[in-house]
């Protein structure tokens, strides 16, 4: 590291106090930053839980078990569709309608 002489060098000859300038930035320790991997997982989990914690009921696309149109309507409110307070696809397995869709017709299966 560089030395910078100073501190009254003109006066006291043989042993003037001397300041040293240190510029030690260390190494680029990217390896150490990988200690933070767990931290990252933990943080995103926290973010998701925070979000879920706001829900009272988890709404999703209507499960075929729930064939009531009123439920359907509930889950089809703009809020539900836009995702606020809703966790769509958490039960995505139930999204598929068990009812066949014959070719040529469309519209909601009778539920």
């Amino acid at each position, binding site marked *: 590291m560089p030395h910078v002489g100073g501190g009254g060098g003109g006066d006291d*000859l043989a042993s003037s106090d001397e300041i040293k300038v240190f510029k030690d930035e260390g190494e680029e320790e990217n390896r150490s930053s990988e200690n933070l991997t767990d931290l990252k997982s933990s943080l995103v989990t926290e973010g998701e839980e925070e979000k879920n914690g706001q829900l009272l009921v988890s709404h999703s696309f209507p499960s075929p078990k729930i064939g009531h149109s009123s439920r359907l309507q509930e889950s089809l409110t703009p809020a539900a*569709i836009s995702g606020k307070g809703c966790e769509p696809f958490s039960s995505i397995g139930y999204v598929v309608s068990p009812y066949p869709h014959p*070719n040529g017709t469309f519209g909601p299966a009778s539920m």
Partner: protein
Amino acid sequence: MWHQGDKRDRDQVVFESSQGGFTQDQMEEITQQLIQTRSQRVRASMFPETLEEGIEIPSTQFDPEAPTAVQRLAEPSQMLKHAIVNLINYQDDADLATRAVPELIKLLNDEDQVVVSQAAVMVHQLSKKEASRHAIMNSPQIVAALVRAMSSSSDVETTRSAAAALHNISNHRQGLLAIFKSGGIPTLVKLLSSPVEAVLFYAVTTLHNLLLHQEGSKMAVRLAGGLQKFVMLLQRNNVKLLALVTDCLQILAYGNQESKLIILASGGPAELLRIMRSYTYEKLLWTTSRILKVLSVCSSTKPALVEAGGLHALAIHLGHQSQRLVLNCLWTLRNLSDAGTKQENADRLLQSLVQLLESNDVNVVTCAAGILSNMTCNNQRNKVVVCQIGGIEALVRVIFHAGDREEITEPVVCTLRHLTNRHPEAEIAQNTVGQINGIQVIVKLLHPPSRWPLVKAVIGLIRNLAVCPANQIPLREHGTIPTLIQLLVKSYMVTQKERSSPASESDVNPDGVQMDEIVENAVGALHILARDPHNRALITAHQIIPIFVQLLYSDIENVQRVAAGVLCEISADKEGAEQVEAEGATAPLSDLLYSSNEAVAVYAAAVLYRMSQGKPPEYQKRLSAELTNSLFRESAPWGPTNHGREANPRNPDEMYRNKMYLENQGDRYGDDRADGSYPKQRPRHERGRNDYGAVDSTVILELTPMVSSAHPDESPDQVAAWYDTDL
């Protein structure tokens, strides 16, 4: 609900219109309706369950036998959905995923925000499973679509899902590259301002991954204004978030001056130090100490950090059990220390540092010593504090254990040099070193393998130690004088060679040390050692006087001063005086009488006077006259006018006493001589001035005899009253 009948009616109506059953306006209206409901038809086709009950979507089917495009899509769309569901449920089919991707791209790019949202959610789900994740990563278009969706969507769900998906793929090289190439970084940086925590967390973690592993990310983040945003986030109080943010800052700022300046300008230092003061989570303290370390090498941030209380904030953690934290704090402190010498109340820091000198860790000891060296530089209070808390003993102990590890001993010796000089307890410090048998191990450091920086520091320390009379014997016994003389000769030769022929830089400044300085320091040390008569004799015996005399011719005032000073000591003995004269000192000394430097002139006068003892009276008289003229000339910079001229020249005692009164400041010498023949110690004045700051007035006093009529048989006492001439 649709019924066949309804359709037919409609169709018939339209059919009829083509036959003129509708007006142009009506036709347009119907067309409009059909266009608007196109996406609804797509949605209905794919996600029939999302339609509101009772919605009527106009059909475009004219011919019952010819299905519309949407109708034709219905099945494939449904199949797609099934496939995805299967994927999600049954995990492993990479092929399915690959086939799903193109469709998903289209959906992500759809105009209908609901469709986009749903698609984003799907992609997020896919990104959670390994096989499907690879399909996503390997598709630049879907990554680009995600970035776009994230960027342009005003829908939180879309943003969140897209961000989550990107986060998932950012754990892989391929994914990072894809994100980087599709311009994901500016978007992610924007999301650092998101009020939605989940989104923010995804953005931070994804950016961290990019910064760590994706080349080009650092520059991109900087360009996108990431530094400022990260600094803003320092005000949050989620410790995990803070740890990642500080780590990102560290990655961005490392080796990058501009980044450091931006962090400074954004108020980073204050926030970072706030974190150090407020939190106890080790990971966070560690990451923060690292960014502080990086900032501490920047000459602009350094003073800001010190002024914001950085030394104290870091000192808090020096006793922490986390070694990595302690070390980073120490490195940072050391970088800051040269700007921190005027900090008040550094007691706690000094205490911790002295304790850390006992550490087993080489890095810890080295850093602690380096910081102490700076903190004691020209700071009397700190010097006293360190002495009082056992700093001297601790430092000497380090030398005992360090052996020839110069990186440790050099800052330690520098600190000891500071501690044995220029503060109220310097004498005690000098004495203590001797008491604890430190001298031998210190003198040993003059020898190889020590390199010049260490040697230079040791010479300075030895000079200080020699001020304490009790140390003169051990110094002599451990062979200091021959070693110093050897070093003097060696360095002197180099300076002479340089004058005669150009030398390479490394010859003249080996290890970055000027050989001129070694000459000066070595002679300065010999000067103090020469107070002791045995040492004087030893020095003289080494035939080094010729070099001292040669040094009188030096251009450098300091060199002249130490040379004249050591000759002054040597010439206190008759044999010494004779040798000095024999080496031709008279001529250069006569010139130096007229030096603008008071100490030089006085020493020169003293040597000349001493050499004149035993000479014919006529000679002595002439000499006295000359000495008076030169020392008290009007042009002398030390101002003879205020106390010389008015007084009666016949009453030189008064003259000198006046001068003594005015100039007796900061004299630091006055140690009793070994042979006891000298006057008692003068009271010391602690004035922040150094040993050479004032002329030794007793030297002036001793010149009295020669100004009045010099008597050849001056009483030995009076001659011997030439007293310590450490000017």
